């Protein structure tokens, strides 16, 4: 969890810069603020489980940061944490269910489809890559690596998309040629989550 907080707080300048190219340049500010506050609250706890950490992050984003990302990432983390709730060990099946819940949360709220140049373009292929890898008999760890690769590729693919939802969508063709800010943060989040789990699984 702390890795998640750290990377978003650390990379907020980069996220804002990406958002500045076609949006209003505040994605990093919003995300940085929410993750920083969540980080402080986590550190104040004696201990917490992964679902508890995700729930706290979701709550913080929902109630403290506003913006598009408050509700979107807020319900994303909240709904993911609900899937894991009460589970002691995290299985590949749990992780798959968690990703599905997160994606569903974002799509039911924001109505973005793949190809609309949003964080869905990272989340959806990352989830598919994970599930496919598991279906092909790969290990949990290997599937997480497949997810990382797909997330990064998904982010890169947003560069050539024309935004269909969100602030940048009004620009039409002018939105082509730059990465999507939400996709960039989503890639960081997924890759960091996966890296943490891979490390844990290796122990």
């Amino acid at each position, binding site marked *: 969890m702390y890795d998640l907080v750290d990377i978003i707080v650390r990379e907020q300048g980069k996220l804002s810069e990406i958002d*500045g190219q076609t949006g*209003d340049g505040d994605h990093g500010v919003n995300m940085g603020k929410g993750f920083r506050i969540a980080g402080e609250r986590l550190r104040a706890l004696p201990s917490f489980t992964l679902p508890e950490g995700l729930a706290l992050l979701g709550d913080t984003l929902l109630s403290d940061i506003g913006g598009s990302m408050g509700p979107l990432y807020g319900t994303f983390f909240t709904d993911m944490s609900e899937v894991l709730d009460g589970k002691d060990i995290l299985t590949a099946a749990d992780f798959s269910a968690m990703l599905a819940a997160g994606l569903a949360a974002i799509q039911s709220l924001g109505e973005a489809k793949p190809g609309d140049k949003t964080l869905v373009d990272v989340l959806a292929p990352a989830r598919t890559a994970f599930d496919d890898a598991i279906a092909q008999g790969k290990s949990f760890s290997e599937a997480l690596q497949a997810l990382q690769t797909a997330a990064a590729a998904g982010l890169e693919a947003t560069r050539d998309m024309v935004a269909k939802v969100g602030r940048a969508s009004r620009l039409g063709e002018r939105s082509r040629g730059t990465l999507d800010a939400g996709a960039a943060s989503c890639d960081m989040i997924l890759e960091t989550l996966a890296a943490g789990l891979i490390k844990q699984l290796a122990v």
Partner: protein
Amino acid sequence: MRKLINDPDHVLPEMLEGLVRLSPGLALLPGSNVVLRSEKTAGVALISGGGAGHEPAHVGFVGPGLLHAAVAGDVFTSPSTDAVLDAIRAVAGLEGVLLIVKNYTGDRLNFGLAAEMARAEGIAAEMVIVADDTALDMGPDGVGPRGIAGTVLVHKVAGAAAAAGLDLASVKAEAEAAIAALGSMGVALSACTVPAAGKPGFTLADDEIELGLGIHGEAGVRRAPIEPADNLVTLLLDRILAQKGVKSGDRVALLINNLGATPVMELMIVARQALAVLEARGITVLRVWAGTFLTAIDMAGCSLSLMTLDQSRLARLDAPASAPAWIAGQ
């Protein structure tokens, strides 16, 4: 960055405190970034808001005949669902609340979720979406145009309707009709600097401007070399007229809005040409405002908004109102 601020993180609470100290009729909802009227009134309550950075909007339009509350988020960031819900709970009476929201994902989500939660609590809550920016060509199934400065005129129409004692459905219907009658477009001569970012969102060459820019510094239709003010004003107005189908013989309200750092000198030159162009197009300007209404922090430039009028909507604009940033139309 040279700004008259203290800490970028304190901009929002400090400016709201300043506003409320300057305005005897206004108060802050304790522990929040919600500005309300000091005195409660009966009838439908109007709430607007969104990210800060558009001052005097929306907090400066709270007052009799206008809004009942404005919810401010961080600079250029929609307020959280919780904050909107707090505002709803604070001002909602038996007649319910109408939320006037600009068309941005964050605002739609947070105000929309708050309205849902309010309804779950038994509060009648409705929402209208202002999408007045005519700068960009919109496909049929996109997210629709941005909401920009014309929003202030929607506040006024809805505020007068609420003050006249109409019920929620009727106030909402008048707000929606006002929105349909409204078109705007802006031109930016400089980028704005979000305090937390510390530097301008983009850079323009010394002779460059950006046409149809969003009120958060989002890119516009195109970047172009600067032209005489008269040409720019003509371009903006002709685009609005065409997009909204306003034609000779129509009667309109005209709002000339400073985007933040435009000197009065320039605004008066813009006003001169705007009135001349509309006259030349056979359009009657029944009311005009020129001033600082809804800004993009310290962006230089202006936006023009037109709202077509019939007798009853004109009466809404003329109805008495008092709020820190409201002035009567001429």
